[in-house]
Structures are given as structure tokens and as C-alpha cells.
């Protein structure tokens, strides 16, 4: 599947009539929203923790250069290697070099969005090394040749029948008679198949939820245990992480952990939170012989000090997309970017340029649910608005939008004229609304009326209605006097 954010509109139209997808998307609301609310409500300190989590990341970002130096020194002291990568291409080359030095034929992978961002799998495959995704969702979409449609639930766009079809197509060494109707059977089969891959793999690649400056540890947060098998059983463990994953101390990590799992899946803690520090030690009976960290910039430093800096607080919990009405309607693939949903709508233009991804910050109703649930209090709607402004300023938005906005702005800047025009227009529209009080089609609003009716105005403007309401308050009625 090609990733191209510029096709958002066409992708979204297709997604809306995709019956399988629409059925699967029903699981997003069912699976996430109530659980998050329950977990957050059960912790009285949740809102305070969100404030503190935000402050910790702001502090880390303000001192990022120094914390990165500290972190690097601690990793080296523990016997690990740190590689700095300015671009996705640099990171791919570094990981490939490590794999080649280890004579790797297969590489197991824990779930990681950063390796999606740098398109690591394609690069390894093109160079004769087989990447094996081990997270169940990632494994399924790898079999299908797809990209994740959600940052923590990569296969949320699929139904179990589709997964069954994929397993029957690929796991041909197993009996065709086997019963795969229940999700538990599918999970068991994936477990059996992947068990062998962990042991056969030469290198295990994971991402990181946090990098801790105090200890030089990388942290992964998972539920399945695949990330741990990946990094424990491979001879070489490679962590790929972007520079803004730095947090100062263990204490800071636990503050953010308290909001991460609750916001993501509604768990108090994910099943496995693993702190890894360096390679196997002399006395250790297990663990990797080598431990490498690839520290990736890939556009983050360009966001620092700009109106998009707050986005660097993101901990990739997925709460924003779980609560987004646009994501619920079209799913993650429609965005055509590695990162979907509201966080992707802000991050993608920062990483790939607004020219390529202008549709994404426009794919929002500005309802504000994303910001209201973001554990790091990232003002996502505000930043999407910044992108819309920048798109407008650079003449990138379509001419109809531009003329429409200019026409509206002409009146909006002249309140008297505006009021005169609407007080003339409203009764007229009300009149044309007919007995049904609805428009089935309307010039210049075809995009709306193609799918639904537009209710006709009541005949008065908002200001007229408001003035009348205020006037009624001034002369108390019998009912009002009783109160």
C-alpha cells in the first residue's frame, strides 16, 4: 500500500462505503473509550498526573541536548552503543550495518512506530534480510502487506474472518481442517508460529517508549510479551528511538507511565514494562550479547522552538484517534500517513511538509475531544489550525476555499454590513426552506447536501434571537418572579 496523504479525500470516500472496514471500526469505540474513562475516573490524581507529565516533558525538551549527553554516557557505561541518525535514511543504514555485522538472516521486531516511520522493513528486505513482526497485530498486517492503521492497535481495521483467511493462506504447513473461527485459536496459532522465529532470529529490533537519562535505560511497554522475547532471545538488540523519548529519571518515567496505559487501553499498567540497560553481563545466563541504540532526529529538532514543539510531548498512546469522530468514520489508512488521527494530522506535516499532507490538518471537526483526552495535554486542534493557516498563507489551499474565505472575511471584518446581509438573508433562506424546513440541494454547498439535508434557518439571526432573549430577561414574567 502506498502511503500518500494527498489522497486523503479519495481514501476517505472509499473507506466510508467499505462494509468490512466500517464493521471493524465499530470496535474502536467499544474497545477503548469506556475503558479509558473507567481507568481515569478510578484514579483521583489522574488530572494532576497529566499536568505533571506535561511539565516533565517540557523540562526534558528545554534541556534535551544535555539529557541526551547524559543518556549517551550512561548507555556507554553499561556497555551499549549509541548511534546518532539525522535522517530516516541514516537510521536505516545504521540498522542494516549492525545486522550485516551480525551476519543476520532474520530480524524479529517488537511493535514500533519509529521503524514504520523510517520504513525499516522494506530496507532490510531489499538487502536480503527478512524482518519478522512479532506483535500479533503487526504480524497480521505484515502478512497482508499493509501498514498499521492505528499506532497501538495496528490491525484494528480488520475482522477475524479476514485474519483467518490470511492465516490459512500463509500457514500452509498446518492442517486445512483446523478450526480458526475464534480469536483465541488465531492467537494460539500465531504464538506457535512466531515462537520458532524468536529463536532463529539473529537480531531483535524494538522501539522505546522512554529513554532514561539517569540510568541509560530504554523502556518498552507491551501486553503480549513479544517485545521482550524479541530483545531477550536475539544475539543483538537494536533499539530505534527518536530523540524526544528522553525523560530525566526513573521517577519521571513512573509519572508518565501512570497516564500512558490508562489513556491507551484503560489498564492501570500494561502487562510488561521493561527497562533494558546494556547487553548481557558476564554473570548473566541470558540476554543479548550486543545492545545498540539508534537515536533518530528526523525532523524533531526542527519542531523545537516552534508552535509545534508541544507535539514532541506525545507518548503515542493513541487516545486522540480513539476519541476522534473522523478516525471513527474513515479509519487509519485513509490518512495515508504513518501516523493517523489527530496526532498524525499535526506530526505528519512537521515531518513530511505541509505541501504533501495539507489534507490531514483539515480532516478535523475541531470538536476538541483529542485535546480533552490527551494525557500530555497537547493542544492538537490549535496546532491543526496553525497548519491550516500556514497552508492558506502559502497559497496551498484550493482556490474555492480561498475565495470563499476571502468573501466571508470581507463581511466578517465589517460587522454592520455583515449584520445587514444576514438579517436580509436569513428570512429569505427560511422562506426557501419550504414546509419540510430542509434543503435537499443548495448552490455552493453540494458537498454537504450530497449526503444529508441542510436544516433551513428559523428566520432570525443569532444576534436577533439573543437580543430578544435578553429583553425577556429584563421584564420578569410571573414565572420568573416566583423564583
Amino acid at each position, binding site marked *: 500500500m502506498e502511503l500518500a496523504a494527498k489522497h486523503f479525500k479519495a481514501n476517505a470516500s472509499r473507506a466510508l462505503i467499505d462494509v468490512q472496514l466500517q464493521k471493524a471500526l465499530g470496535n*474502536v469505540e467499544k*474497545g477503548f473509550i469506556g475503558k479509558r474513562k473507567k481507568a481515569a475516573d478510578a484514579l*483521583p*490524581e489522574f488530572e494532576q498526573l497529566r499536568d*505533571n507529565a506535561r511539565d516533565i516533558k517540557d523540562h526534558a525538551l*528545554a*534541556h*534535551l*541536548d*544535555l539529557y541526551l*549527553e*547524559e543518556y*549517551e554516557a550512561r548507555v556507554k557505561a553499561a556497555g551499549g552503543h549509541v*548511534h*546518532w541518525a*539525522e535522517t530516516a535514511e541514516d537510521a536505516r543504514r545504521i540498522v542494516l550495518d549492525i545486522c550485516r555485522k551480525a551476519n543476520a538472516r532474520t530480524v524479529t521486531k517488537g511493535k514500533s512506530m519509529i521503524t514504520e516511520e523510517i520504513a525499516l522493513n522494506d530496507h532490510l528486505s531489499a538487502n536480503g534480510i527478512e524482518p519478522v513482526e512479532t506483535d*500479533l*497485530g503487526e504480524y*497480521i498486517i505484515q502478512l497482508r502487506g499493509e501498514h498499521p492503521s492505528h499506532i497501538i*492497535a*495496528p*490491525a*484494528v481495521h480488520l*475482522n477475524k474472518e479476514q485474519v483467518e483467511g490470511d492465516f490459512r493462506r500463509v500457514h500452509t504447513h498446518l492442517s486445512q481442517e483446523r478450526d480458526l473461527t475464534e*480469536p483465541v485459536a*488465531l*492467537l494460539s496459532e500465531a504464538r506457535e508460529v512466531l515462537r520458532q522465529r524468536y529463536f532463529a532470529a539473529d537480531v531483535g529490533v524494538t522501539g522505546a517508549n522512554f529513554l532514561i*537519562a539517569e540510568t*541509560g535505560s530504554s523502556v518498552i511497554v507491551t*501486553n*503480549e*510479551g*513479544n517485545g*521482550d*522475547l524479541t530483545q*531477550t*532471545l536475539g544475539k543483538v538488540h537494536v533499539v530505534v528511538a527518536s*530523540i524526544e523519548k528522553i525523560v530525566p*529519571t*526513573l*521517577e*519521571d518515567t513512573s509519572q508518565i*507511565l501512570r497516564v500512558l496505559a490508562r489513556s491507551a487501553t484503560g489498564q*492501570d*499498567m500494561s*502487562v*510488561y*514494562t*521493561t*527497562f533494558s*540497560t546494556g547487553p*548481557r*553481563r558476564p554473570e*548473566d*545466563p*541470558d*540476554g543479548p550479547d550486543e545492545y545498540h541504540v539508534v537515536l533518530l532526529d528526523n525532523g524533531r*529538532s*526542527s519542531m*523545537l522552538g516552534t508552535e509545534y514543539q508541544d507535539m514532541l510531548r506525545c507518548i503515542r498512546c493513541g487516545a486522540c484517534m480513539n476519541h476522534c469522530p473522523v478516525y471513527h468514520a474513515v479509519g487509519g489508512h485513509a490518512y495515508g500517513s504513518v501516523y493517523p488521527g489527530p496526532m498524525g494530522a499535526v506530526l505528519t506535516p512537521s515531518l513530511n511538509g505541509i505541501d504533501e499532507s495539507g489534507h490531514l490538518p483539515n480532516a478535523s471537526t475541531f470538536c476538541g475531544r483529542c485535546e480533552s483526552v490527551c494525557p500530555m495535554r497537547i493542544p492538537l486542534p490549535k496546532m491543526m489550525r496553525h497548519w491550516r493557516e500556514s497552508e492558506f498563507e502559502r497559497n496551498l489551499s484550493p482556490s474555492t476555499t480561498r475565495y470563499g474565505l476571502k468573501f466571508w472575511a470581507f463581511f466578517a471584518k465589517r460587522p454592520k454590513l455583515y449584520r445587514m446581509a444576514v438579517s436580509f438573508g436569513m428570512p429569505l433562506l427560511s422562506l426557501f426552506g419550504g414546509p419540510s424546513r430542509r434543503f435537499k440541494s443548495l448552490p455552493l454547498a453540494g458537498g454537504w447536501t450530497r449526503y444529508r439535508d441542510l436544516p433551513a434557518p428559523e428566520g432570525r439571526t443569532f444576534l436577533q434571537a439573543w437580543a430578544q432573549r435578553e429583553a425577556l430577561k429584563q421584564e420578569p414574567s410571573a414565572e420568573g418572579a416566583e423564583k
Partner: protein
Amino acid sequence: MNARENVLAKLRRVTGVTGDDAARRATVASRLSDAPKGVIPDRANLPRDGKIELFCAMAAQFGATMTRVGSYTDVPAEVSAYLRARNLPAEVRMGADKRLEKAKWSSEKNLEVRSGASDGGDLSGVSHAMAGIAETGTLALFSGPDNPTTINFLPEHHIVVLKASDIKGDMESVWAMVRKAKGKGEMPRALNLVTGPSRSGDIEQTIILGAHGPRALHIVIVD
């Protein structure tokens, strides 16, 4: 070296700072040495028994089972009973933890105890946790010869022994234990925080226990 210098120089340029600003260095140094705690949930601010009770309730909520025994010598019989009740072979994999050695496994004549790291062929493994976190029902396990990391993930049944006095209220108490055991800024190679048995919700967002890690987590609390 170039990429490193470029990234650091760019970070400093865009934020208008320098790397040799003594005040910034002092801020970072004091944050790292003081490690301020922040907001600690009140839910685990309980006396000893309350902590143990909360730990058990939370661990059960996340799918773990547990039992309490009076001393380490009761552990082998408890492990045997667990295996028997689930029709599992009387075999366990275990590391070299001194506290587990104290348990006198020879008392269970039929139980085969294999030592060292797991190679994936074990159905059941036994570990000793270094702490329990009451706040979330979480176990903290250190890597090393005493408790090899592979035992935490490869067996289908993970039995974890935990001293009642090691059940702490919050995560921060575990950081204090880590620093006491390893020194400030030092960590075991792997520190695993484990909350319940492994699970996946990747197929239709239906949670199923037993993904790639253990299908069952059984905690034996020793008073």
C-alpha cells in the same frame, strides 16, 4: 561523530542555548540527583496489611492468581499443588536465587527442578520477585543468574514467589530498592515490571490471555 554534533548543535541553535551554560547544566544535574517524586497516588498509602490486600486485589483484577504461605519451606508443596491442579507435568525451571534455594525442593520427591535460563522447552517456571507494587498489582523482577529473564516470558505458567515485606505501595519505592541494590544510576540488565499474564486485543479488540508470554501468572506470597 558528525551526526551527533549536528543534532546537538541544532538543538542548541533552535532553542537559543549553549551546551556550556553552567546554570542549565546545574538544573539537569540537580534533577538527576534529586529525582523529585511528583504525584504519588494516595490509593496505596496504607499500612502493611492494607498494602498486601491491595496488591492481591489489583493483581487478581489483571488476571493473576495468588496464594499465601507461612514460610519458604511451604513453597515447593504449593508449586506441586499448582501443577497438579492444572494437569501439568511435575517440572519447573528456576534460577539460582538464594531465597528459592532455602525452600528445600528435595521435599517434593516427584518434582523435577531444572536450573538456569529457559530454552523454550519448559511449561512452568519459578522466579523470585524483588518487589511487589500494591498500587497496580505489579511484580518487579531483576535479570541475572538468580532469576533469568527467559523464565519470565517463555514458560506457559509463570509462578512468582514474593516476600510479603517486599510489597510496597508505589513504583517509587521500587526505585529506592533498585538504587539500594545497584547504586544510584545503575540498573540490572533487565528490570521487568509484570502486571498479570500476557494478553492481546489485536483481533477485534477482544482481550485474550496468553499471547507470546505466559498464559497464567501465579503469585506465591511468603509471610
